[in-house]
């Protein structure tokens, strides 16, 4: 697998524009439109390039029964792809969203995310990646349907149009999609099919009701944990409490005697107790007597991790170099330096990790909420000695992803247990399993240095970022020769117009797996860059908003969101006893600025309101954009206030929501979002707002108290929250 980073501006790589589409007849009549990526260079993933005429992958299926089914290759984890992606195709077919059905696509190389190089829902890419691809698929279908009708009626295609699920002519003559599907499918897909002009959009850019809402208000939406198969057993999994440890020996005699227990199976990730019912498995798990081999992380503690990061001696890799920072610092009239510390974080999705597998002689069916289907397929294939194509991934709704379900650690155990007992098995992790065996957001120790010249102008900024790399484990080819692009986000694309900028990354591994966590390294680096900007503004004796704005003439979109948020939040006009902080970021091709409004009572901070301005380019569904922005703020604020995973003797100390506190309704500040209309290419919206809230609050705290918090979470400061 390989991952393709996007450019700092979130530009689509050229291969996306060179995509090519193919269509073919659907068995039983009908039209399916697929897109294959022949000709796109993916050197490290040649297997993922299908040839012309290979099995087409369907994005769109029009049945003789007038059904319009849109397949989505991305997983629905709350971010709204179940609605936004179908909108792109429905727009081209001129049908209302209510006329389409949505299905999750299987695992398959044709569903490779062209921005990231494997089938993956992450990196805030869903709409960005689909934007041209799915509209083009829809435009092709439109042309093929019109072409079929034009031939049948012996008229020029240009005299026909789509309306209400049919091709119609000016005189009202009509043939439905279902009637035309078979003939349309026999036509060659036009190479020049062009998506509709923006001015003619009926759906895109207009708020649409989510298609998954009805099933999520009556309990019928099926998440991985809700899958029921005939004869299915349940399993609870015991994993080594020390991260990275293994089973040395198991005495399962007591557990096996308990009611309902079918079998105790040692699997790659621990010991699975399989029982008729889940609670029986949970009870029996406590009766296991396991001797663990704690492995290399015995003795690992948070204090040691921080000390190691601080003392990391790895060679810094350059992620950005403008001008000559060293010379500018030497010539500086004034120099400022600060260091920042960021903790490990758990994802804590509402739905704990779980997986259901049905291992059979010819392969294995896997029912799971995953963000990374092909890797899941490979993990199960490895565990069972199968070929990847023998593993069929059935993606279910995800009860939260946030990057946690980019990991496949929770998947093979179900397949191994299923094979061992000869029945389908559902493995369910407890909340404690989930919290103590996550792939945590990397911790970081970062040093920022800046120089001011004789005119009190910011002449240099140097950022030295030290953290372990997620990408080195997940997608090694990406970091073989280059700096991990997913460790320097929100830093390498430093927005401010400073003549000398240097961003360096020191990769320092800490012995445990770290994972992609909503907004990835933006959540680390935006805190550093934007807290530091605030510090610099105060050193320069300038207003933090004006100080930033003056350095953004070359970044009009960034400047615009900053001005918008300042104006909307009433920057500089906080209510009595209230204080404001501001922060700005570009990430995933989206510009986000936030103002936090806080007050202090007896030394305790209360966050009253977050105002947020966003320019994410062309919006597909503004209703979902807004909910993703507020969602990201709540997620980021939970982490900023309380989020911290700590280790002692290689074990995670946080176990559940009592000691890993997250924002509840009574803690939630007022949230106000301002979306800027834009015709720019769509940017990602799932993640960017997450990263901006911590520095906005930290900067407000400084304004309120003169206290500069450079280590998160705020709760680590006694009495502050």
């Amino acid at each position, binding site marked *: 697998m390989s991952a393709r980073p996007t450019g700092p501006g979130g530009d689509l790589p050229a291969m996306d524009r060179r995509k090519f589409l193919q269509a073919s007849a659907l068995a039983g009549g009908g039209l399916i439109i697929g897109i294959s990526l022949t000709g796109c260079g993916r050197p490290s993933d040649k297997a993922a390039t299908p040839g012309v005429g290979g099995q087409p992958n369907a994005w769109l299926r029009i049945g003789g029964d007038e059904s319009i089914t849109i397949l989505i290759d991305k997983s*629905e*984890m*709350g*971010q*709204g792809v179940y609605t936004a992606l179908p909108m792109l195709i429905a727009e081209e077919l001129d049908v209302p969203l209510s006329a389409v059905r949505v299905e999750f696509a299987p695992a398959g190389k044709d569903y490779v995310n062209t921005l990231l190089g494997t089938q993956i829902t992450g990196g805030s890419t869903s709409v960005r990646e689909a934007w041209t691809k799915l509209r083009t698929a829809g435009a092709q279908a439109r042309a093929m349907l019109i072409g079929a009708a034009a031939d049948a009626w012996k008229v020029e295609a240009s005299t026909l149009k789509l309306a209400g699920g049919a091709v119609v002519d000016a005189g009202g003559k009509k043939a439905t999609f279902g009637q035309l599907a078979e003939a349309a499918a026999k036509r060659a897909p036009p190479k020049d099919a062009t998506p509709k002009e923006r001015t003619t959009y009926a759906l895109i850019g207009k708020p649409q*009701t*989510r298609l*998954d*809402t*009805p*099933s*999520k*208000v*009556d*309990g*019928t*939406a*099926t*998440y991985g*944990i*809700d899958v*029921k198969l005939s004869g299915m057993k*349940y399993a609870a999994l015991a994993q080594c409490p020390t991260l990275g440890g293994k089973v040395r020996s198991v005495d399962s005699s007591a557990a096996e005697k308990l*009611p309902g227990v079918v079998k105790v199976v040692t699997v790659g990730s621990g010991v699975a107790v399989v029982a008729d*019912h*889940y*609670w029986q498995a949970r009870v029996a798990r406590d009766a296991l007597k396991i001797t663990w081999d704690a492995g290399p992380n015995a003795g690992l503690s948070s204090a040691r991790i921080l000390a190691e990061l601080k003392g990391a001696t790895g060679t810094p890799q350059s992620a950005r170099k403008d001008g000559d920072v060293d010379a500018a610092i030497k010539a500086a009239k004034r120099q400022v330096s600060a260091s920042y510390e960021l903790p490990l974080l758990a994802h*804590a*999705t*509402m*739905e*704990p990790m779980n997986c259901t597998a049905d291992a059979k002689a010819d392969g294995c069916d896997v029912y799971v909420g995953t963000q990374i289907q092909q890797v899941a397929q490979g993990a199960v294939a490895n565990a069972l000695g199968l070929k990847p194509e023998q593993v069929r991934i059935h993606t279910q*709704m*995800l*009860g*939260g*992803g*946030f990057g946690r379900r980019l990991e496949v650690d929770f998947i093979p155990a179900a397949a191994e247990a299923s094979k061992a007992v000869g029945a389908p098995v559902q493995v*369910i992790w*407890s*909340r*404690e399993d989930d919290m103590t065996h996550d792939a945590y957001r990397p911790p970081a120790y970062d040093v920022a240095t800046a120089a001011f010249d004789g005119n009190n102008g910011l002449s240099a900024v140097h950022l030295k970022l030290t953290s372990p790399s997620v990408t080195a484990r997940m997608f090694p080819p990406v970091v073989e020769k280059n700096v991990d692009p997913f460790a320097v986000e929100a830093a390498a694309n430093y927005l401010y117009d400073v003549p000398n900028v240097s961003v360096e990354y020191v990769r320092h591994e800490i012995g445990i797996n770290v994972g992609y966590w909503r907004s990835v390294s933006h959540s680390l680096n935006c805190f550093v860059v934007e807290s530091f900007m605030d510090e610099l503004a105060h050193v320069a004796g300038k207003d933090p908003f004006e100080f930033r704005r003056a350095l953004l003439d070359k970044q009009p979109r960034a400047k615009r969101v900053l001005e918008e948020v300042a104006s909307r939040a009433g920057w500089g006009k906080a209510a009595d006893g209230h204080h404001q902080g501001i922060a700005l970021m570009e990430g995933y091709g989206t510009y986000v600025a936030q103002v936090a409004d806080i007050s202090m009572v007896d030394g305790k901070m209360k966050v009253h309101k977050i105002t947020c301005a966003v320019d994410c380019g062309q919006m597909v569904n503004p209703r979902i954009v807004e*909910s*993703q922005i*507020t*969602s*990201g*703020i*709540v*997620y980021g604020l939970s982490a900023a206030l309380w989020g911290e995973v700590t280790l002692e003797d290689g074990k995670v100390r946080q176990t*559940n*929501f*009592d000691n890993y506190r*997250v*924002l*509840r*309704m*009574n803690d*939630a500040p007022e*949230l106000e979002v301002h979306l800027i209309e834009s015709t720019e290419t769509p940017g990602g919206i799932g993640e960017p707002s997450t990263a901006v809230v911590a520095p906005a609050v930290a900067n407000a705290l400084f304004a309120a108290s003169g206290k500069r918090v450079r280590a998160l979470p705020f709760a680590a400061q006694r009495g502050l929250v």
Partner: protein
Amino acid sequence: MTTLKVNGHTLETDATPDTPLLWVLRDHLGMTGTKFGCGKSLCGACTVHVDGSATRSCVTLLSTVVGKDIRTIEGLSQDRSHPVQRAWMELDVPQCGYCQSGQIMSATALLLQNPAPTDAEIDSAMAGNICRCGTYPRIRAAIHRAAELIKTGGAA
């Protein structure tokens, strides 16, 4: 066998009396609308009504609910017509949706006791229900909207 009253039906289960109601519902009775989140009454995803009160089913043993009226998300309405469900749909409250059965059951219990709650009363009643997607502003607005719908004729 234990006999339970769920959503107006009498159901039998072979689950042992010390099984949490959550797993009786999900696993023995096949009603998966009620969700497992934390197992410790900390997140509210498993909220059901027992005799009209919001109850965390993950820490409620089967033996303690025999003879009581249990209501789950499946029993709120047959067709999403309950005012709370209608309000939730109008405002497109769910994102990932996993916590929403619990949110809806907590909100419904609140409105049964307090047909016109203030923001502060909503915050207090809903504080036990975590949503990691952060749908809180829409949940609060939807509870106000449901209160209006109930006032104008919808049964709670």
